[in-house]
């Protein structure tokens, strides 16, 4: 370490010059990162929420769905890349599939938890008022499960933002390209830290956006909190 730093005295952790000289590379990496993350979370939500509803409607399916999600979640991300890369090749699609898989598991688990927390009295009341299964789902269960669904979306988004970096293994890691590219380019600290900081910041910004969206989607929760 001391040898290295002596050989490269000018390798700061932060450098304006790096940012000024490489806007295209940085913006490109950030754009790819946002695209991959958004695609993955959107697909995962579109598949995961209906699966959770299935587990909610057909209770015998609840335990197997949750257990299956738990087992799949144990499998390392790089192993999932390894399973699909020989078939899908080394494109951006290979990155999206594992991301979808992990986000899916988080979303299913939290949506199901949210749906199962709908109070039994509320469900009974809805049935007593003559709601059918679908009407009850759309008007009663899903709105009440919004906090759970949102928690799932937020956790999945933040985790996906971090995990997208692993896409470097097939050359599509978004900001991971900066992080590992900097490491391999003779330990270029400014590039590594730029990628890392942007990645964490992106995760936090998306998390806050989703939190705000959730606030807007559940005005009654705020009203209840404001009431004495």
């Amino acid at each position, binding site marked *: 370490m001391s040898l290295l730093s002596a050989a490269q005295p000018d390798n700061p952790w932060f450098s304006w010059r790096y940012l000024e000289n490489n806007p295209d590379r940085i913006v490109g990496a950030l754009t790819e990162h946002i695209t991959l993350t958004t695609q993955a979370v959107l697909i995962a939500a579109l598949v995961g929420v209906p699966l959770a509803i299935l587990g909610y409607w057909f209770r015998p399916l609840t335990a197997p769905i949750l257990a299956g999600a738990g087992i799949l979640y144990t499998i390392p991300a790089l*192993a*999932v890349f390894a399973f699909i890369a020989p078939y899908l090749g080394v494109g951006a699609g290979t990155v999206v599939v594992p991301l979808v898989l992990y986000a899916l598991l988080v979303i299913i688990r939290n949506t199901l938890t949210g749906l199962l927390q709908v109070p039994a009295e509320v469900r009974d009341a809805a049935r007593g008022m003559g709601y059918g299964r679908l009407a009850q789902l759309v008007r009663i269960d899903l709105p009440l499960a919004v906090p759970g669904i949102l928690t799932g979306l937020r956790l999945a988004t*933040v985790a996906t933002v971090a995990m997208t*970096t692993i896409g470097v293994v097939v050359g599509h890691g978004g900001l991971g390209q900066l992080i*590992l590219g900097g490491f391999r380019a003779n330990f270029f600290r400014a590039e590594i830290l730029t990628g890392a900081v942007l990645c964490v910041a992106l995760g936090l910004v998306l998390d806050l956006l989703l939190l705000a969206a959730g606030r807007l989607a559940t005005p009654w929760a705020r009203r209840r909190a404001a009431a004495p």
Partner: protein
Amino acid sequence: MSGPVGQAVTWLNDPLNWTNPGGILDRLGEHLTLSAGAVALACLVAWPVGLWLGHRGVGGAPIVVLSNLTLAIPVLATLTILPLTAIGFGRPAVIVAMAIFAVPPLLATAYTGVREVDPQTRDAARGMGLSGGQLLRRVELPLAVPYLAAGFRIAAVQVVATVTLAVFVNGGGLGTIIGAGFGLGMATGGGQILAGGLLVALLALLVEAVLAVGERLVTPRPLRRDRRRRTPATT
């Protein structure tokens, strides 16, 4: 049998791929050494702090913030940044990089474990004249063991899974097999990539299974059903 699966079977069937220097057994050894080091380091840091915070009943919110923050940090970032700090290149940097992600689950479960102790039990112990330290050691710590075991399982499985990424900084471990396969290209390395992925996945599932049994063994019988019901809500 041809295609990647056939290639993977062929690759796994070659005894030299297991016993060669840098073969599967070597990589497995590295993988387990790194994982054990990271989990041990994380436990050493997280358990005393978590138990003490739980004992004092403070710090619940910061622990949640810490967990959410570490979720946003890419493993790739700690793996590449730490070797360039005072820690230097080599195994210690990889171990610290992994331990960072193992701390939040260990911390949270230790804290919850102590907090979940029945207040009446705590009052009874106080009434018997136990000091704060004695209360923590003799009452709260034993009662928190099932939680500590659950946290240990979550952290250990996560570490075993993420140590795979050490390949990106030439840190060794089973991920190296996958990385080498990608280096060879899909046509020749496809089988090796698949075989490496299979080994890593099996190891993670095996660790999960073994530690789940361990967790069950240290959990007193009356608490078992209760714990299972609570697990989905906390994760």
